[in-house]
């Protein structure tokens, strides 16, 4: 019983990410040049992502992982996010005078963890993946060691994250007890009336709900996002969240019992999350924190699509395939936009992240037209305006909800979009329609650094591309047998 070569190639991306992480640490003493490290890390991120090209579809490692279009999609997603975040961190690390090698290594390890999550077909493997990304994240959150906020962010993330992990793990234990296995495919064949299974799946939902910041498990999100170094926040908002959703969706589509149990749970989580996120964001004056709340709201929108997925089995004719597609498309668009937006916040923040309030954004339209325009594009995408990725994302989510006859959910989402419009618009308004009070402080950034600008351009182009020509990506997310483990 040794894994085949094909299996090894199926995990090549993770291997490459981890390998580059190790190499980064090894090279650190020799490569004093920060840009060199950045480039090396980017190469690693890219290489890992591209390595998916060699993988063969199918399950590997005795059914622990499943390499399918779905996992491919999420590998690309997290790889791309890692690539962009590394690129965006370059100037940040220089400004904040932080060590690069460890930072990049941690990002790569976290990415590897996310990759595991995306392809895991077995709960324990998923758990290990989750922990890899989480533990890296804890460290990354506290990476600005001398900043009180950063360490506080790390503490909160660590304590609450571990707390939630314990729930997740306990859920795994119970599911294992009920079905005698932790493999999703085998769990799927368990008698769905088992209460132990029900209890276990619920606790798993608590753990994963925490990771994706679904209300009322969202409490940690604003604090952690605000305190963490901004590029790390970008990573948090995009990568782990998408990867956790990936796992959740795989559990969903594989274990039909789960969809039965979880329908109302998701309905309520979705509604609560949308409202908490949007209403919370409404009253924020710190842009970074506002975006944190906004990411809660977007988790809520994603959960709407999830709720639509749950009806798949209940009514096979509604066609849940578009609902998966909605989740995938939404997450892609959302992640890229969040990376772009946080990158701009990171750059505007200046040394010590001192300028992140709305007042600091005032008059940005004249001071930094490019940054302001890009930020506007990202905000409009988050808002769901046409010709941006966010519009199609929201459009597909709506469509999934309506296809599943979840009219009320769609209506509530509509209301939330409108609330959301208000606070996104406020940032735009401040940037373009208000003048900066007093002189612009000397420490504030005068323009985006070239690396950050590159990230912003890539994210903006991707946003518009997905908003104008979504066909290609749609072709992927709508492909037959997207999720091989799904029955």
């Amino acid at each position, binding site marked *: 019983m040794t894994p085949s070569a094909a299996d090894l190639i199926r995990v090549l991306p993770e291997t490459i990410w981890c390998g580059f992480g190790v190499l980064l640490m090894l090279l650190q003493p020799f490569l004093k040049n920060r840009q060199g490290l950045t480039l090396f890390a980017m190469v690693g991120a890219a290489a890992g992502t591209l390595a998916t090209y060699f993988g063969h579809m199918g399950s590997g490692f005795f059914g622990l992982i499943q390499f399918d279009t779905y996992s491919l999609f999420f590998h690309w997603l997290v790889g791309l996010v890692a690539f962009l975040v590394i690129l965006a961190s370059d100037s940040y690390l220089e400004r904040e005078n932080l060590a690069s090698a460890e930072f990049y290594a941690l990002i790569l390890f976290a990415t590897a963890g996310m990759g595991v999550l995306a392809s895991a077909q077995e709960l324990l493997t998923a758990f290990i993946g989750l922990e890899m990304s989480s533990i890296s994240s804890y460290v990354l959150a506290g990476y600005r060691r001398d900043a009180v906020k950063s360490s506080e962010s*790390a503490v909160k993330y660590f304590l609450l994250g571990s707390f939630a992990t314990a729930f997740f793990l306990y859920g795994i234990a119970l599911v*294992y007890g009920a079905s005698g296995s932790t493999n999703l495919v085998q769990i799927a064949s368990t008698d769905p009336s088992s209460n132990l299974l029900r209890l276990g799946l619920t606790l798993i939902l608590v753990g994963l709900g925490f990771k994706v910041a679904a209300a009322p498990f969202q409490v940690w999100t604003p604090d*952690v996002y605000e305190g963490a170094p901004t590029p790390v926040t970008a990573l948090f908002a995009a990568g782990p969240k998408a990867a956790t959703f990936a796992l959740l969706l795989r559990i969903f589509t594989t274990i039909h019992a789960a969809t039965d149990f979880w329908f109302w749970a998701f309905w309520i989580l979705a509604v609560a999350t949308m409202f908490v996120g949007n209403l919370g964001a409404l009253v924020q004056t710190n842009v970074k924190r506002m975006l944190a709340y906004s990411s809660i709201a977007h988790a809520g929108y994603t959960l709407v699509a999830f709720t639509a997925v749950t009806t798949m089995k209940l009514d096979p004719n509604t066609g849940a395939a578009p609902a998966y597609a909605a989740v995938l498309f939404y997450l892609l668009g959302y992640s890229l936009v969040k990376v772009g937006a946080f990158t701009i916040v990171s750059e505007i923040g200046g040394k010590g992240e001192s300028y992140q309030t709305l007042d600091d954004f005032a008059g940005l339209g004249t001071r930094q037209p490019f940054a302001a325009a890009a930020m506007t594009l990202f905000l409009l995408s988050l808002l769901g305006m046409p010709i941006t990725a966010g519009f199609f994302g929201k459009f597909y989510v709506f469509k999934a909800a309506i296809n599943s006859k979840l009219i009320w959910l769609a209506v509530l989402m509509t209301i939330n979009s409108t609330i959301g419009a208000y606070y996104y618009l406020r940032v735009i308004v401040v940037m373009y329609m208000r003048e900066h009070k007093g002189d612009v402080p000397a420490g504030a950034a005068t323009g985006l650094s070239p690396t950050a600008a590159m990230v912003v351009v890539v994210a903006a182009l991707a946003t518009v591309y997905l908003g104008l020509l979504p066909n290609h990506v749609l072709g992927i997310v709508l492909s037959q047998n997207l999720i091989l483990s799904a029955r």
Partner: protein
Amino acid sequence: MVPTSYYLVLSAILFGLGVVAFVFKRNIITIFMAIELMLNAVNLAFVAFSQALGKSDGEVFVLFVIVVAAAEAAVGLGIIILTARNRRSLNVEHVDLLKL
């Protein structure tokens, strides 16, 4: 023979006490201990199920959990040291700069 449910109920009680401890304790280190307590409860459940099902993979999981717990401990204690350095206090209730 001890019925498996006894072990499981014990595990649930320990898990519940872990949750209580997490909520109740103020010292970050003891809160972290509460997490360890919860993980121990999980381990107990794994072993009990493993025995009841007559499969050994449950015990393998326990090994993984222990490893993960150790890794978490390393990082967690690092974070705690960092916080203690920054704040000169281990009371979790005083870690409230980020809020609202």
